[in-house]
């Protein structure tokens, strides 16, 4: 992995075992050399200024406890999926993962904390424990080969493919407890295997289909980990945040915090907070969507992730919330001719139709202002305007799904394995949808906000090349595309 900004340290980084300290890594804080301490360019609120929060985030114990609890919940969900009732909406595994977890993820964790979930996700935890040779403090003699991830695969195309694969099978994955359990176990074992072969969190960074879309939408989150003073990082030759030190592992996500400009691949694991000897890492509060205002680091694979997610939100809204029974059965009947037709249609729609129409909109905008930028660059840059609308589409979809189904949680919590238990006295609670009068209004507000946010983002992206009026002219077709998508989403969700 190339660590942006590492300069002369690159070769050393490439040969240093992941997570292990450099030869001179153990450096007492009292002996630290003085580094440039120009006034920080960061004036945003640093959450680490609060002593209690700082103590909680720097310590490994709270994170370990939450991870262990999450892993226990994960294993209970798997067991319930394998051993509990085969009826999906009465199975604790299905309800915990696809209703409770999904609610928290889409309505709270992702919009407000970005990749915060990744910092406590149980799936990579066993593999990381083996890799570190410890549950708490990483050691030098952990297991695994620590190979570098293949250079050709250092992108999110595999995650895009994995998500697309899960998406076309989602009608079964979301409703069949055993299939959900098998999928969760597959995630777990692939994560363990990847940790034993490759360095650090290669699974999370390059394979996890959930991590792919969390990363995309984490750009909108108002919380970010950034360095306080880049000069301090540049002068710090040890780069303990990337290479690790006695205080902790090098960045598990293969990032060099000194060059971090986007949330996309930062797992918010706090290792850099622990290993920076100059206390130069901040957990900042910032405006929503700040990452989209920077042209740095835009890529085609991420652009396609945006189309895949937006398209999947539309497909899910049609299949799961629409009145079309035949479409539901086609999505459910995996292996049949109608399912192949459905899967092909979905893949063509999210990977062909949506990007194709978008390319047309981008080309029209370029023609209006006689842009000299390469087409690919314009396409990729403007694709980031779809990120806010995509997240809002998922929130709008989830609102309908979640409020209608969350009451399935009460009986399954009391009797997770279908053994006749009544742990919380709710085993016989009946299904009751909530807020059915208000949900369409909430969905409308969310989609209106998503469209406006995307329109502003498209205008800002165009303004990177042109003055404001010309920028608006170039962005207009992209804004029209976003409006068309919004109309479709409203048609599916509230019409």
């Amino acid at each position, binding site marked *: 992995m190339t660590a942006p900004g590492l300069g002369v340290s690159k070769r050393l980084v490439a040969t240093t075992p992941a997570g292990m300290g450099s030869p001179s890594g153990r450096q007492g804080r009292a002996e630290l050399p003085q580094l440039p301490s120009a006034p920080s360019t960061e004036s945003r609120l640093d959450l680490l200024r609060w002593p209690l929060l700082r103590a909680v985030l720097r310590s490994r114990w709270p994170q370990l406890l939450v991870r262990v609890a999450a892993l226990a919940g994960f294993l209970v969900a798997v067991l319930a999926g394998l051993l509990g009732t085969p009826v999906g909406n009465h199975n604790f595994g299905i309800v915990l993962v696809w209703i409770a977890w999904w609610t928290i993820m889409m309505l709270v964790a992702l919009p407000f904390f970005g990749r915060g979930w990744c910092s406590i996700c149980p799936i990579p935890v066993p593999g990381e424990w083996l890799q570190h040779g410890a549950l708490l403090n990483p050691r030098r003699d952990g297991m695994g080969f620590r190979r570098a991830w293949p250079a050709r695969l250092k992108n999110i195309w595999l995650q895009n493919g994995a998500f697309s694969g899960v998406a076309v099978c989602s009608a079964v994955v979301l409703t069949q407890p055993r299939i959900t359990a098998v999928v969760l176990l597959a995630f777990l074992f692939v994560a363990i295997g990847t940790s034993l072969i490759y360095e650090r969190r290669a699974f999370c960074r390059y394979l996890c289909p959930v991590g792919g879309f969390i990363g995309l939408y984490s750009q909108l989150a108002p919380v970010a980990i950034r360095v306080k003073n880049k000069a301090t990082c540049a002068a710090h030759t040890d780069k303990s945040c990337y290479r690790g030190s006695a205080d902790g592992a090098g960045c598990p996500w293969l990032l060099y915090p000194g060059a971090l400009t986007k949330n996309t691949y930062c797992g918010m694991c706090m290792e850099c907070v622990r290993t920076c000897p100059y206390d130069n890492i901040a957990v900042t509060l910032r405006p929503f969507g700040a990452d989209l205002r920077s042209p740095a680091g835009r890529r085609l694979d991420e652009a396609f992730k945006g189309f895949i997610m937006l398209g999947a939100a539309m497909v899910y809204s049609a299949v799961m919330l629409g009145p079309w*029974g035949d479409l539901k059965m086609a999505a459910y009947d995996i292996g049949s001719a109608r399912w192949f037709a459905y899967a092909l249609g979905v893949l063509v729609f999210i990977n062909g139709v949506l990007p194709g129409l978008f390319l047309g909109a981008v080309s029209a905008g370029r023609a209006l202002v006689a842009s000299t930028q390469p087409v690919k660059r314009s396409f990729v840059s403007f694709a980031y305007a779809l990120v806010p609308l995509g997240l809002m589409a998922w929130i709008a979809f989830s609102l309908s799904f979640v409020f209608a189904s969350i009451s399935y949680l009460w009986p399954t919590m009391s009797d997770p394995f279908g053994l006749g238990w009544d742990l919380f006295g709710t085993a016989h609670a009946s299904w009751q949808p909530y807020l059915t*009068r208000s949900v369409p209004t909430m969905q409308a507000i969310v989609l209106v906000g998503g469209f406006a946010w995307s329109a502003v983002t498209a205008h800002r992206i165009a303004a990177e090349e042109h003055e404001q009026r010309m920028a608006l002219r170039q962005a207009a077709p992209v804004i029209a595309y976003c409006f068309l998508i919004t109309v479709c989403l409203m048609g599916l969700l509230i019409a």
Partner: protein
Amino acid sequence: MKRSRVITTALVFALGAGVVAFAPLPGASVKPANRRFRVEASSFKYAPATIKANVGDHVTIDLVSTDVVHGLYVDGYDVSVTADPGRTASLSFVANRAGMFRLRCSVTCGAMHPFMLGKLHVGRNDLLWRALALALLAGLVGVSLAPMRGVRT
């Protein structure tokens, strides 16, 4: 951009949004009638999948299940009915709220049960048109107000 212009535009937007969201819309008043629908339920669909009524209509739904036990719950009205296979069960209510309301199966009937849905349209769907108008207004104001300078990330 001058602060006074921002404030003025924001106020105009707020006023416009208020009008779009809450102003009463003209509509042809239709005399309420009795409407009866026969809805067949089978795995995992209703036929017809969509039914329409006018505001004030007295709606009766005869639910007929053609395979296993199915239910029908009407979003927004909080009323439901359950039909055994081959038997008709009826549900009546006054459609006094306009808009789109989902019909949901209320009895676990198989794997895709949570997604067994239909739709009831009552009168004109003002929410949809108001939302589209608000989206246009919000987009217009957004692109004219948002600062174009870059920000730190």
